[in-house]
């Protein structure tokens, strides 16, 4: 190669950068979009039913979202690494019962929560080990552990159930109490959410989760401890499912062997609506939390508007599809608009450059 022109100005890529900043901003706005949809929905409901945003109403909205937000936060971490944990519903159920069983015997509430979290950690570790050491598809493994944990739960629990009467009054009161309209449980979930988001953005190991979801082979070559990170993501997800179990107990005061059945689909929906992509590497826990808030609120909004519960399921499904479609269409439109404007700018600058 002798065709060197070292003094030549590098191929100008200036417009690209301003374009990507805009894209960046728009991507951040994707979470904003969910928030807007959520707010519109709330406002419309409030107009239709002035009691909706009463103190009690707000409290209910927040409480309903809390548990799903927690589990969705954990799930996002796993999904970001290009994996999935379908066993969260089973884990939540067994952790809730374990905590309840312990409290039933007259235990300490804090110990009960720790117990639930530890149980979650245990199952998270199991999933993580199977997925990362076995290097097998997460979908299958966690579908398997979904069944296994649920089965163990049913064998252990049998037809027993824990009701509010079996629990210490303080524990149950904590589940529905709070500072005016803001429940304690929601505060806990918020704290976990913010801490997780901060960790993902500002810590090396957090960024590595994105990296290995984005390109696992490249992550290995970059010397990222892939197995360790995946194990950690699953463990964290399990821990949050366990914590959510304890919260479920406090909130509903009522658990049996069926608690949390089918929850995995709700969690996955929330994560998807929140813009966490299943092929890994992108999305944020804030998005997932908003997705969770949106989904649970639909279930409060429809009854509050007097929509017959017969319609709820269909509306839920259609909303889910609408949410992801609108998100997608907006993204496509913005991308093509950006491309065109970038092209125009390039042409302009080139014209200028030539004259200069």
């Amino acid at each position, binding site marked *: 190669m002798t065709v060197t022109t070292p003094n030549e100005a590098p191929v100008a890529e200036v417009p690209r950068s301003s374009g990507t900043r805009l894209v960046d901003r728009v991507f951040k706005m994707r979470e904003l979009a969910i928030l807007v949809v959520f707010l519109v929905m709330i406002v419309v409901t409030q107009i239709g039913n002035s009691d909706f945003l009463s103190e009690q109403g707000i409290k209910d909205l927040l409480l309903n979202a809390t548990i799903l937000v927690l589990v969705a936060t954990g799930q996002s971490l796993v999904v970001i690494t290009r994996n999935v944990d379908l066993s969260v519903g089973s884990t939540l159920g067994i952790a809730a019962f374990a905590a309840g069983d312990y409290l039933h015997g007259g235990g300490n509430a804090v110990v009960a929560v720790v117990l639930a979290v530890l149980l979650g950690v245990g199952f998270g570790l199991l999933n993580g080990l*199977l997925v990362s050491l076995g290097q097998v598809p997460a979908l299958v*493994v966690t579908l*398997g552990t979904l069944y296994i944990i649920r*089965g163990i739960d049913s*064998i252990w629990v049998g037809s027993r159930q824990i009701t509010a009467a079996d629990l210490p009054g303080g524990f149950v009161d904590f589940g529905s109490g709070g500072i005016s309209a803001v429940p304690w449980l929601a505060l806990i979930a918020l704290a976990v959410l913010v801490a997780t988001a901060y960790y993902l953005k500002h810590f090396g190991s957090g960024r590595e989760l994105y990296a290995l979801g984005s390109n696992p082979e490249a992550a290995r070559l970059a010397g990222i401890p892939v197995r360790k990170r995946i194990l950690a993501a699953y463990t964290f997800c399990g821990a949050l499912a366990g914590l959510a179990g304890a919260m479920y107990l406090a909130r509903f005061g009522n658990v049996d062997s069926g608690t949390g059945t089918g929850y995995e689909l709700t969690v996955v929906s929330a994560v998807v609506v929140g813009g966490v992509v299943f092929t890994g590497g992108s999305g944020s826990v804030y998005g997932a939390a908003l997705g969770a808030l949106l989904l649970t609120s639909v279930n409060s909004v429809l009854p509050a508007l007097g929509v017959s519960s*017969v319609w709820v399921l269909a509306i839920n499904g259609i909303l889910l599809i609408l949410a*992801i479609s609108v998100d997608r269409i907006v993204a496509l439109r913005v991308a093509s608009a950006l491309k065109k404007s970038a092209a125009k700018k390039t042409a302009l600058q080139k014209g200028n450059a030539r004259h200069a």
Partner: protein
Amino acid sequence: MPDSLTRAIRWDTVVGALLVVLLLLSFGTVDGFGNALNLSFLIGNTLPIALIALPMTLLVVSGEIDLSVASTAGLSGAVMGKLWNEGMAIETIIPLCLLLGVVCGLVNGLLVTRLGLPSLAVTIGTLAAYRGIAQIVLGSDAVTDFPSQYLNFAAGRLGNTFLPQAFLPFLVLLVIAVVVLHATPFGRSLFAIGASEEAARFAGIRVKRHKLILFTVTGLMASLTGIFWALHYASARYDNATGLELSVVAAVLLGGIDFDGGKGTLGGAIAGVFLLGALQNVMSLLNVSAQSQIVVTGVLLVISVLGPRVARQIAVARAAARSAG
């Protein structure tokens, strides 16, 4: 002989072998298993899963998934019941319901191919939507008075044999599916699409069209299953076949179909379906509780993915030992 070795430990063959072993063992040792009535029950109850597993396998091979199948089945059943109550002729209703299935599948397919949405997300959405529509259509009714010749076809046996009457049509569909997937250019394209969509497109394969066809056929088969379900159990309700999608997915996974796309055989998938069905039947006859059955299913799934891996590692180790020796 590394070639025959790897072939011998292919997972779909293992599943097939497990099925045969289970059947042979059960014939000898499990009371009540071997008689024609039980076998017909076993096959009859497994047929809905098997029917949906056919298109699902093709879909998964091409890298997509449809979780709305059970809802589509429920919706066709509900519409069938509703129209029947309205006094329409069953011969008109059935084609209409199949058409409805086509529409359901088409909606999934269009959302996936036109908007480029992930099929997992789309079909979780339609899973709720179709079931919800079924609930709106039929409400709390349970329609049970379908004409007896149809009920008998869906529930009856071929003479005194162990084969349900509906088994023959299934067999025909199975053969068609096997040929399509493993012996036609269409099937070959599906493997390519599943393994690398972009490379398939660069090879001139019409990726979107293939996927649209698959989703549509899946919808059609799901509604066929819904009709069969309603007649087999003589009951059309909006919640028919709830949760069937997980059974199908579990069985297909067990049969060694890779959810990343591009790998698997229909034989393996169907062996997986009947292995799960037979296992459940045998466990019930042996008084294994429902809870323990769930655990067994889960363990089997985990083994189904760990198994081939371990087998591969053993094969590699052996090959290394041989080349060293």
